[in-house]
């Protein structure tokens, strides 16, 4: 790892100030992506602004069906929250299958969302839940937030403070884990509201990162059952292909994971 300067922020304002006074600074949350990439020398920020100790960024609040999760809340805390489990077990289940127990003890929802790894789990949930990403400056809808591989709508210095969404009546996430890395080789999050609104979001597969599957959404709006997806197709030309899986294989995984998610919802 190259040299770096560590700063610990005591509040959101403090963090933004520390970051803006650094030439090439980065926010540091759980470090499960950032420290790991710095060790490989793939990232070399001159300054790190640690936001993990900001008390106001670690919370889960549930009011009626409205959910708000602080950016520095760990995957473990999301997975094991009884309030969240009562109203949206799908997101607890998703968090419980990120990485391994030690990664879940450190990694945070804000860090995962800001990083927008094409194989990360949370982006699929946020897109399907029509979540809002709350920053120190504004609120950004998930549909506008995830802009490409490792790309988001965040501006330089902008910091995520919370994630907010209305819990749908039914939801589930099905993930085909890469057996070595534990990331999603394909993951599908489905959500259905009593209003009839259906969303299907796919991660781990898209060549441009997380995406909504319009064909599946239409089929499930007509008939909310795994069978409704039998004829659904995904064009391999839009999907990733790597040593783990070809795009044709991923296209098939999208269908199978979507069916499993609907069956579990």
């Amino acid at each position, binding site marked *: *790892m*190259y*040299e*770096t*300067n*560590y700063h*610990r922020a005591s509040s959101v304002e403090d963090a933004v100030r520390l970051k803006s006074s650094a030439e090439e600074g980065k926010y*540091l949350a759980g*470090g*499960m992506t950032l*420290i*790991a990439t*710095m*060790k*490989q020398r793939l990232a070399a920020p001159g300054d*790190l602004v*640690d936001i*993990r100790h900001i008390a106001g960024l670690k919370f889960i609040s549930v009011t009626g069906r409205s959910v708000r999760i602080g950016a520095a809340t760990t995957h*473990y805390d999301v997975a094991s929250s009884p309030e969240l489990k009562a109203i949206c077990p799908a997101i607890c289940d998703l968090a419980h299958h990120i*990485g*391994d*127990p*030690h*990664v879940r*003890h*450190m990694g945070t929802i804000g860090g995962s969302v800001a990083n927008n790894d094409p194989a990360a789990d949370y982006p699929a949930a946020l897109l399907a839940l029509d979540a809002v990403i709350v920053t120190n400056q504004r609120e950004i809808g998930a549909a506008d937030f995830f802009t490409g591989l490792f790309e988001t709508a965040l501006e330089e210095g902008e910091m995520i403070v919370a994630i907010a969404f209305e819990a749908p009546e039914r939801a589930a996430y099905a993930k085909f884990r890469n057996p*070595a*890395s*534990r990331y999603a080789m394909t993951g599908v999050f489905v959500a259905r509201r009593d209003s009839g609104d259906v969303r299907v979001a796919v991660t781990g597969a898209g060549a441009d990162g997380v995406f909504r599957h319009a064909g599946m959404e239409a089929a499930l709006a007509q008939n909310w059952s795994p069978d409704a997806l039998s004829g659904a197709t995904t064009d391999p030309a839009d999907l990733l292909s790597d040593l783990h899986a070809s795009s044709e294989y991923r296209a098939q995984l999208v269908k199978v994971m979507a069916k499993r998610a609907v069956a579990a919802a």
Partner: protein
Amino acid sequence: MAKVKMTVNGRQVGSDCEDRTLLVHFLRENLALTGTHVGCDTTQCGACVVHMDGRSVKSCTILAAQAAGSSITTIEGMAKDGELHPVQAAFKANHGLQCGFCTPGMVMTADDMIRRHGANLDEATVRAELDGNICRCTGYHNIVKSILAAAQEMRAVPQAAE
């Protein structure tokens, strides 16, 4: 370079290190606690697992500076008064190790999962909880056996005291 202070195995410690120093190197090189191992550079093997404020973490992917002010427990802090911790004793009794390289991380992981799951810890849960720990020798069977035995032992202790 800054002085980093934390509590390690119940003892207040402080030592100068660069901001980029990883917690595992701080433990091994500054504090000479070499029980915590480094087995990979991709945050995957779990040889480096310690407890930070009561939760298992990978000390190879945390800066010492991030851990400043926290309470750390390493494998050296497990045995008390010359008596092996129940998890250590179970690994010994069940042949839960061969070369022993992964063992410190396995023991710290086992203790963490036993505390979180209590009586609900079954074989499938143990195997899932070992997702972040790699062993090149044992094939895991005896590790799982050791953890289940330790869980039973640790449940039995408070009952016996009643």
